[in-house]
């Protein structure tokens, strides 16, 4: 089994989780209502914890300690999809991103629960349980708001339109796709994307929203190859600020 391919897979998953976990944590204290603020913050914590589990797997494969990897890299060393580094915008965009990303993430971990790389399969089995709630939360909100008032429906549709091409960018393929598929580690981005499209379609319909028509699709790639928007560097600086004050401190 190609360890470079495996590490690349783990890095992109862990970076996705770390970056979106941080973005979602920016809503803490500013959420629309108390219960929702707590739920969203709690899920952000979950995501950062999940990224730590994956960084731990990377550490066992020879990479540095999770804290070092998470908080001392520069923005041009991160492998997250650009979708996740975009600013939070209003709650409508954040919820739509939460929906589009979390469904993909849950499907990814469902596939990985059967991975031939047993340590990852083990982690995946634990994580997919947590994601059940994240997806339930996202589905509930998207459907409620899509069917709410004129304003809520318009906002959700706009958010979906704005998010769509970035969301497609989550499935940027790696040069090692065939290795990962052949060795049974992962079914590959194409299979994941197909499953994702099939899964979100009925919920988008239930929410009375519309997916942009396929002749307008233009996936935003680059994140997996460490090419990022101007939004990632400030995020990484702020996220790493406390750790970098004293990287050797005991917490």
């Amino acid at each position: 089994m190609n360890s470079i391919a495996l590490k690349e897979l783990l890095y992109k998953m862990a970076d996705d989780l770390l970056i979106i976990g941080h973005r979602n944590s920016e809503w803490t204290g500013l959420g629309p209502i108390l219960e929702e603020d707590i739920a969203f913050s709690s899920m952000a914590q979950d995501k950062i914890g999940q990224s730590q589990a994956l960084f731990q797997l990377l550490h066992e494969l020879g990479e540095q300690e999770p804290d070092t990897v998470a908080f001392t890299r520069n923005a041009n060393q991160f492998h997250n999809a650009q979708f996740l580094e975009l600013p939070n915008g209003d709650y409508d965009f954040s919820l739509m991103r939460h929906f589009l990303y979390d469904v993909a993430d849950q499907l990814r971990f469902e596939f990985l629960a059967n991975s031939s790389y047993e340590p990852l399969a083990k982690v995946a089995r634990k994580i997919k349980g947590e994601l059940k709630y994240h997806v339930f939360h996202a589905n509930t909100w998207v459907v409620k708001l899509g069917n709410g008032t004129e304003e809520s429906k318009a906002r959700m549709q706009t958010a979906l339109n704005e998010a769509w091409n970035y969301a497609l960018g989550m499935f940027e393929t790696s040069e090692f796709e065939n290795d990962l598929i052949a060795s049974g580690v992962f079914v590959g981005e194409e299979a994941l994307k197909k499953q994702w499209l099939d899964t979100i379609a009925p919920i988008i319909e239930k929410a009375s929203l519309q997916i942009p028509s396929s002749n307008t699709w233009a996936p935003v790639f680059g994140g997996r190859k460490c090419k990022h928007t101007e939004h990632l560097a400030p995020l990484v600086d702020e996220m790493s600020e406390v750790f970098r004050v004293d990287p050797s401190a005991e917490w």
Partner: protein
Amino acid sequence: MIKSLDPRITREQIEENNSIEPLTPMDNWETYEVFHQKKRGDQHMHVGIVHAPNPEMALLFGKEQYGRRNITANIWVVKTANVFACEYDDADMFETTPEKQYREAGGYKVMEKINKYKKAQKTV
């Protein structure tokens, strides 16, 4: 504008001295009482409330408010409006109950009898 030590608050550029508008009816969602079950088969314990527009979202919020720490097997939610209680003014109904010790089960020494039987079985 509010200037906080936390940059995430400062960059929202929130005005100081926001006038607080009085709440209108239905401004807040109604409340649901939340009951938490630690292990399957245990009694549910009342743990607090959540505000929600319907039972589905009450469960959604209840899980994160009250099920995010320690062990949870399940959560019940019941509309506060569906909870019926006695009036505290009628508290004198309960006044003489502590005196009625003949109603207590403390005299039912079943464990003693069980242990006695077990001991007897061993010596057979």
